[in-house]
């Protein structure tokens, strides 16, 4: 057929040269290549003894952030749930009572906040949707488990521990 453009270039050569006909030159060449890898440094990462450092923007397990005083940022606006393509997030909102100012930053808070980690596709849209800097994905991976029920992460596993704060400033940087 007529060519469509003038940029085409034939990329194959199917004619065997005499040496190629003999099988052996190519075989010996190939074997030399493989044997040269015998002493090369192995590429293997010895997980779990050695852990690779993930990119700072890696989308792994979620965290519900607290502010500097330890109050939860989440106000249960539900944007993350709406933004979730897998519909993995559910929450119940509650009104903050008097005396709980140290626990919750805004007047509303999430009484129940659950992410179904088996449903989650780690797309990061919830993080983008959050207007309150509450939910972030971290560079931790979600652990495997034996039971399907184990994967519904409630607030006990999502809210960050004040003693082990997770640094998310790198995620927010837009370079």
């Amino acid at each position, binding site marked *: 057929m*007529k060519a*469509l453009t003038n940029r085409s270039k034939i990329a194959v050569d199917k004619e065997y040269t005499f040496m190629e006909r003999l099988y052996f030159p190519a075989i010996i060449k190939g074997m030399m290549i493989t044997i040269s890898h015998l002493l090369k440094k192995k590429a293997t990462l010895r997980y779990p003894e050695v852990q690779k450092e993930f990119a700072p923007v890696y989308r792994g397990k979620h965290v519900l952030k607290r502010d500097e005083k330890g109050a939860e940022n989440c106000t249960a606006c*539900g944007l993350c*749930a709406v933004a979730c393509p897998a*519909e993995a*997030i*559910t*929450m119940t909102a509650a009104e903050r009572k008097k005396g709980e100012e140290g626990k919750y930053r805004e007047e509303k808070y999430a009484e129940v906040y659950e992410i179904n980690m*088996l449903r989650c596709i780690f797309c990061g849209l919830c993080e983008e949707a959050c207007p309150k800097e509450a939910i972030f994905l971290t560079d931790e991976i979600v652990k495997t488990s034996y039971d*399907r029920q184990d994967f519904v992460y409630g607030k006990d596993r999502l809210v960050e521990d004040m003693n082990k704060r997770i640094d998310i400033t790198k995620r927010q940087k837009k370079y």
Partner: protein
Amino acid sequence: MESNNAEHTKIVEALNSRFASSIKEMGEPYGELTISVDSSNIKNIIAFLASEEMGFSYLTDLCGMHYDTTDELGVVYHIHNLYTNTRIRLKTRMPKAKPEIDSMVSLFRSANWQERETYDFYGIIFKGHPDLRRILNMDEMDYFPMRKEYALEDGTRTDKNDTMFGR
């Protein structure tokens, strides 16, 4: 229809001279020549376009549609002339009660599975198709899932609180 594209003008003229009665609407949204035609004459029109004279020898895409406002089904064809690099979109509509249209398999072999897929999704019968069966879904399925009235979810999902998403 006025067009700045000389190729489009030529095609429109050629079609108008032959199939004036079958053409319902023409337009150029986003620079793509779009022609709505009568579904009963679609095979002749495409055969004419695919002939050597017009050179639209390539069926890029064939897909079904469900217009739920008028309760009509439709088939949309994208055909392509590779040498002039022109694309045409041909749209047809047919009543949902009698969704029948001619098959394109004799012109383009690539239409075979695409028509089966369209049948699978929308229940459009392609007359003259050699092997019109479901392709993606199970044979036992008794409805055409892409029609607007059918739900997306299968209802067996147990780990989701639907009230969150307003369903």
